[in-house]
């Protein structure tokens, strides 16, 4: 396995050396043509919305159109595979969501690793919110704890095995020293419906989704996972306040390029993204939805990705989460 990967990387190096001259030429006048950002999910997700919004600023900053391309499917692996095999010339950029990174830990037969990419910039993301079903009789955190410690355990909804909500849910129940059963749904809205109907007892959703439910008569929002309370849920305590400081659940988004992208191209792209995120326009749109800006560039971002990978690996092995392929 490893040797074959090395061969592949070796072949890639030879290939990119052959490309070197044209890359060097491209670099001088980059960007000379439109830049494509690949989204590894179907349209409409947070990665898609954020990138499309940023694309406007990027287009004016870089003087070239920035095009969003959705390559969904395969739990992000299809889009990421496509992006990993693109030319490292600065015209193909990948938007990596958290779940895309989890896949590199969860599955061991992927045609790429984190080393196939040069991390450019991470922009931050949304903390999670813990919701519970009033319809199933859970109104307070104490009710929830009672359910978690009951002999049959609590049922928690997720959008599938290996999602951040799943990893956070297992960790939370483990920290609370109780028992839980994962109920997988196709996506978050289906899961929320299950909680609102009283069929599933609790769920971790993004704080953006959680805020929609704050006045719901069937659902209660019990906690947020950020270090501080969020602007859109000011009355909801953090998990740390409730005594679970280890819970560190959040979804984040970042931009990566195929490994070997010229350093100055990467830094120009990174600077444009940073500028785009810092515009009042961006902050006014996404701030109120509890988007938490956390800009990390270059090596900082890479170190962050590696530490996240290690964190996911620990949760996955501790809780014996396994997939055949």
């Amino acid at each position, binding site marked *: 396995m490893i040797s074959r990967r090395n061969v592949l990387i070796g072949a890639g190096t030879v290939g990119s050396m052959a490309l070197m001259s044209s890359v060097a030429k491209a670099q001088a006048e980059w960007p000379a043509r439109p830049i494509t950002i690949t989204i590894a999910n*179907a*349209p*409409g997700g*947070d990665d*898609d*919305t954020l990138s*499309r*919004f940023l*694309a*406007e600023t990027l287009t004016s900053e870089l003087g070239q159109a920035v095009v969003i*391309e*959705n*390559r*969904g*499917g*395969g*739990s992000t*692996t*299809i889009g990421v*595979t496509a992006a990993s095999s693109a030319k490292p010339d600065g015209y193909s950029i990948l938007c990596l969501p958290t779940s895309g990174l989890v896949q590199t830990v969860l599955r061991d037969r992927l045609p790429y690793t984190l080393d196939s990419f040069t991390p450019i910039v991470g922009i931050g993301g949304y903390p999670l919110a813990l919701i519970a079903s009033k*319809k199933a009789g859970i109104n307070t955190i104490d009710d929830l704890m009672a359910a978690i410690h009951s002999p*049959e355990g609590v*049922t928690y909804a997720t959008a*599938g*095995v*290996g999602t951040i909500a799943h990893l956070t849910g297992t960790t939370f129940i483990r920290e609370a020293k109780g028992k839980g*059963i994962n*109920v*997988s*749904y*196709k*996506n978050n*809205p*289906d899961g*929320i*419906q*299950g909680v*609102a*109907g*009283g*069929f*599933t007892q609790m769920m971790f959703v993004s704080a*953006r989704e959680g*805020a*929609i*439910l704050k*006045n*719901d*008569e*069937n659902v209660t929002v019990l906690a947020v996972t950020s270090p501080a309370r969020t602007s859109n849920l000011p009355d909801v305590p953090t998990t740390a306040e409730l005594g679970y400081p280890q819970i560190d659940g959040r979804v984040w988004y970042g931009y990566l390029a195929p490994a070997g992208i010229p350093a100055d191209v990467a830094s120009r792209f990174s600077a444009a993204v940073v500028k785009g995120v810092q515009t009042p326009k961006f902050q006014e*749109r*996404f701030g*109120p*939805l509890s988007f938490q800006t956390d800009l990390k560039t270059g090596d900082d971002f890479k170190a962050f990705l590696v530490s996240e990978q290690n964190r996911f690996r620990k949760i996955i092995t501790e809780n014996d989460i396994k*997939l*055949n*392929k």
Partner: protein
Amino acid sequence: MIDNLALGLSVAMTFHNLGFAFMGCLIGTAIGVLPGIGPLATIALLLPLTFTLDPVTAVIMLSGIYYGAQYGGSTSAILLNLPGEVTAVVTTLEGHKMALKGRAGAALAVSALGSFFAGTVATLVVAASGPVLTSFALSFGPAEYFSLILLGLIIATVLAQGSILKSIAMLALGLALGLVGTDIQSGEVRFSLGFFELFEGIDFVAVAMGIFGIAEIVRNLENPENRNVTISKVGSLMLTKEEFRRAAPSVLRGTVVGSVLGILPGGGLALSTFASYILERRVSKYGHEFGTGAIEGVAGPESANNAASQTSFIPMLTLGIPANAVMALIIGGLMIHGIQPGPGVIQAQPELFWGLIASMWIGNLMLLVINLPLIGVWVSLLRLPYRYLYPTILVFCAIGVYSVNYSTFNVFETVLFGLVGYLLFKLRCEPAPLLIGFVLGPMLEEYLRRTMVVSRGDPMVFIERPVSAVLLAIAALALLTMLLPAIRRKKDEALEE
């Protein structure tokens, strides 16, 4: 309610909003007609443009695209036997047969008029009882969904034109194809043969385009007489009095079926057209004409589809829970405008809520205005000699299938299913039950497994919950009435020998 509707109309009727509603419906119709290119991708593309618009205007335009696309999908189903969306599969059954009989104009007209009527009624339903209906939708748990889908599958065998046994076999083949991909509960990938592209299952558009579109082209090329029929008779564009009389009750029934099922977020929209088709076939005096181009089989499902598209807004508006991916996208767009759809939105943003409702009706009116004159244009497409038409269909299929995920894998999938479709035709097997099994099968498993997890392994929930029990009883009854005549016939045959 009258006051509220008046407020809504005053919002929606501004020149500005009318213009955007018109634009949305026009774009929606256009992309709906093209196979594979769905409202999801289009709305995502246009979302950034709406950031600069007023939120009410943005939603009015985006929802115009949504129901425009629902409507446009039936146009290609009727004319070319190309179901680009799940809901259009049923429309091919009678709609395309009508087109072959020279009644394409009537099929398109009844679809437009039926949709408009259903849309109008469903809009009133949303306005009058949205919040009440929400609690009905919420009380539908996994057990109820399972029973409903099982019922749908059992009565879907009525779709059979030929042998019942073979059509059940096709349904089972569809169920088998639906197994491919990630198992929702365990997260494990099944039957993917190592392809990442199959993690989320076989693509619906690839199956539908292959089995219907591609196989149909080969069949038509094989029998030159077939295609000449299409060209020679185009017939009058409007409905005859007789057709109108026959279609009216079907439109009414379809509206009721669609309005009720549309509220259920987990597959109600897909079920609504099947359910209405089956109902028409059972209830209509002309049931024996089904399969040869019965107008009831277009009028009912088309009305149901449109009614369901309207009422599927209910869970989104009152709970903030989107019924499908398009709704999720619209919610995303609203949130960027600082509006949180959900329980409070009716009180907090009355002009948004009622404006949207009024615009739904206006959108339906626009669709009628756009589509009635277009019928002539669409039908004249059929006058195009088939030797020009089929390469055009092929090109649009290829691009449509590719654009779903920008994946050449999907194109090759379509090639494979084109081969399967042709094989099934040669073996005289009906493809429609296969598609229905393919769509409903994964839902059946999902809800069955979820019921068992939530009930912690106790199968009694299916009969302890009243709604589920009633649905299961109807399913058992349907199965019996279907099997009994067959058994009796067998007996008679045995006696004769």
